[in-house]
């Protein structure tokens, strides 16, 4: 009764040796539109770049040199520096399929701590700044721990910690603003990122330069280090990443901590921009950074998109903000337009995705 499996199955599988070796290929002629779709698909940050260029050109034609000058264009950079830096943190978190609602709160809390440590406690500025970074890292750790270990949804974790960090900020600072002039005298290092380089009409603050370097550095890390590949893998499919050898929890934690540190850095840059330390800043930074990320084409489901796209997304919003203000429309029209922009950007993105490679 014992039949050898091998011989049994061979009776129909033996013919396989003759089977066709062709690789099935379904290529067909592509229409012009499909070619565009394909190009955009392979370079996801191209869409926001094109939108950015188009909007600069349109505003430039309409407004002339009031808009189309080195000064005005670098002004936009200055205006988006904070959102760009926080957006970098937000991008990392969204790439691992998370979301960070507490970014603004971490930023302000860190900047307040830096200010208080330097001005009221009287620590040397570098130490005060380090402590500020420590606060950012701690906030990030709390978020990361709750997401990775307790396995709570990131939206809820950061919704909760947003309120907690913000309340801490107000209670700790007693709502007191530290004046620019006082900081200038006692701890000018805090205002470091407000310094600027002038090149012709262009004004590049150190904050702007820091933002660009940060984004480039992160783009490098995401594409060329193992950590970066792991970030994408975790965002793509966390279970698959875990099984194929990624330390998922650690990767998630590292991303939230890094995001916290970047937010603290944004807090420092914020002091440079405002001159002063103001606990009421940054109330909408979370929405603004998410908007930049979304317009920049990073998928809210994680694992897809480029951090450069986020930068372009932030700049698009900046261009519209300044352009529409110079045109002189009611600020409400700007909000409405940004609303349309968000939906439009994602609709285009969705259309491109449909081009299956």
């Amino acid at each position, binding site marked *: 009764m014992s039949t050898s499996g091998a011989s049994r199955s061979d009776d129909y599988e033996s013919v396989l040796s003759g089977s066709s070796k062709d690789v099935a290929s379904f290529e067909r002629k592509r229409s012009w539109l499909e070619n565009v779709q394909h190009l955009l698909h392979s370079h996801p940050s191209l869409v926001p770049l094109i939108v950015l260029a188009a909007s600069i050109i349109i505003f430039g034609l309409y407004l002339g040199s009031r808009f189309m000058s080195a000064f005005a264009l670098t002004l936009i950079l200055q205006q988006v520096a904070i959102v760009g830096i926080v957006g970098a943190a937000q991008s990392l978190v969204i790439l691992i399929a998370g979301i960070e609602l507490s970014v603004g709160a971490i930023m302000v809390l860190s900047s307040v701590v830096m200010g208080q440590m330097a001005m009221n406690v009287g620590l040397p500025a570098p130490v005060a700044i380090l402590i500020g970074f420590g606060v950012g890292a701690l906030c990030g750790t709390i978020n990361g721990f709750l997401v990775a270990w307790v396995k709570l949804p990131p939206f809820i974790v950061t919704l909760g910690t947003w309120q907690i960090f913000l309340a801490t900020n107000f209670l700790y600072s007693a709502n007191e603003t530290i004046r620019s002039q006082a900081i200038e005298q006692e701890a000018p290092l805090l205002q470091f990122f407000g310094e600027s380089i002038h090149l012709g009409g262009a004004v590049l603050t150190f904050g702007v330069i820091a933002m660009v370097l940060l984004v480039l550095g992160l783009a490098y890390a995401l594409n060329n280090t193992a950590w970066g590949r792991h970030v994408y893998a975790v965002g793509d499919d966390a279970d698959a990443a875990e099984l194929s050898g990624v330390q998922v929890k650690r990767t998630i934690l590292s991303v939230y901590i890094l995001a916290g540190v970047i937010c603290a850095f944004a807090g420092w840059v*914020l002091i440079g921009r405002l001159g002063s330390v103001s606990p009421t*800043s940054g109330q909408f930074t979370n929405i603004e950074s998410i908007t930049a990320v979304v317009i920049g084409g990073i998928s809210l489901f994680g694992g897809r998109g480029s951090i450069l796209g986020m930068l372009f997304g932030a700049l698009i919003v900046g261009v519209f903000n300044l352009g529409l203000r110079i045109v002189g429309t009611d600020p409400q029209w700007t909000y409405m337009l940004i609303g349309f922009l968000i939906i439009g950007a994602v609709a285009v993105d969705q259309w491109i995705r449909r081009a299956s490679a």
Partner: protein
Amino acid sequence: QDKTTACLVTKTDTNPFFVKMKEGAQQKAEELGIELQSYAGRIDGDNQSQVQAIESCIAAGASGILITPSDTKAIVDSVQKARDAGLLVIALDTPLDPVDAADATFATDNFVAGQLIGQWAKAKLGDEAENAKIAMLDLSEAQPTVDVLRDQGFLSGFGIDTVNENVIGDEEDSRVVCNDVTDGNEEGGRRAMENCLQKDPGINVVYTINEPAAAGAYEALKSVGKESDVLIVSVDGGCPGVKNIEDGVIGATSQQYPLLMASKGIEAIAAYAKDGTKPETTEGKNFTDTGVNLVTNEPVDGVESIDVSEGTDRCWG
């Protein structure tokens, strides 16, 4: 019952102005042995939270409520409920609409506050006022009442037709070259100033809704080296603001007295709780004016002002 309870309902609890107001009330309350409960909206204009706050005060059995209304019209019904329940309701800082909806109002006249800095700016510029280029850095797109009063007060003080006195930004005078919103903080002040400069680099007068916005605007001007060519005026008179006048950041500011409002308010509630007396209004006005002073180191003719050292003595925060 045991202790008299008073409530303080502010627009927000993040703006230093209201924080100081709360401190003033707290101090006075301790002094008089009154229990103070404080409430606040989340942002300026958050009417719903204030409605809740009033209800909670009624439930808590308070004797009186001090409120800085976020929406001066919309809150009236709730205030009426509180008064019907036998509470003394005093509007602080911002009068209700209509004013007599509250038992009393201890306020700065925000319109006058705006007017003072408008007059000062006009006098300061002299003949140049005809060619002034003015940026109006307002509070928020929702245009809450203070925002409207100060903005329109400034314009009328400067001699500009406000058209509809209830609406910001409908002026036709070509001297107003820019309107933008600041959310009343440094961040918004800086951004709005940058935007306005881009719109018209020749701006030489900047009205700001409050001193944090003024500080932000100053940073923007400083970054393009225009800080000394532009006149910044503001409203509030907080200590950092007065210091900024001393440092030449702000030209003039209208100083208000939130601590005074609050402590007077608490006193009134204490008196009411004791024997039912209600406060009297300032003569000739339908509210108790806690006064407003123009603080500047460069006084001009025809506009009364106090100098920085006096301003510092009386500043809050």
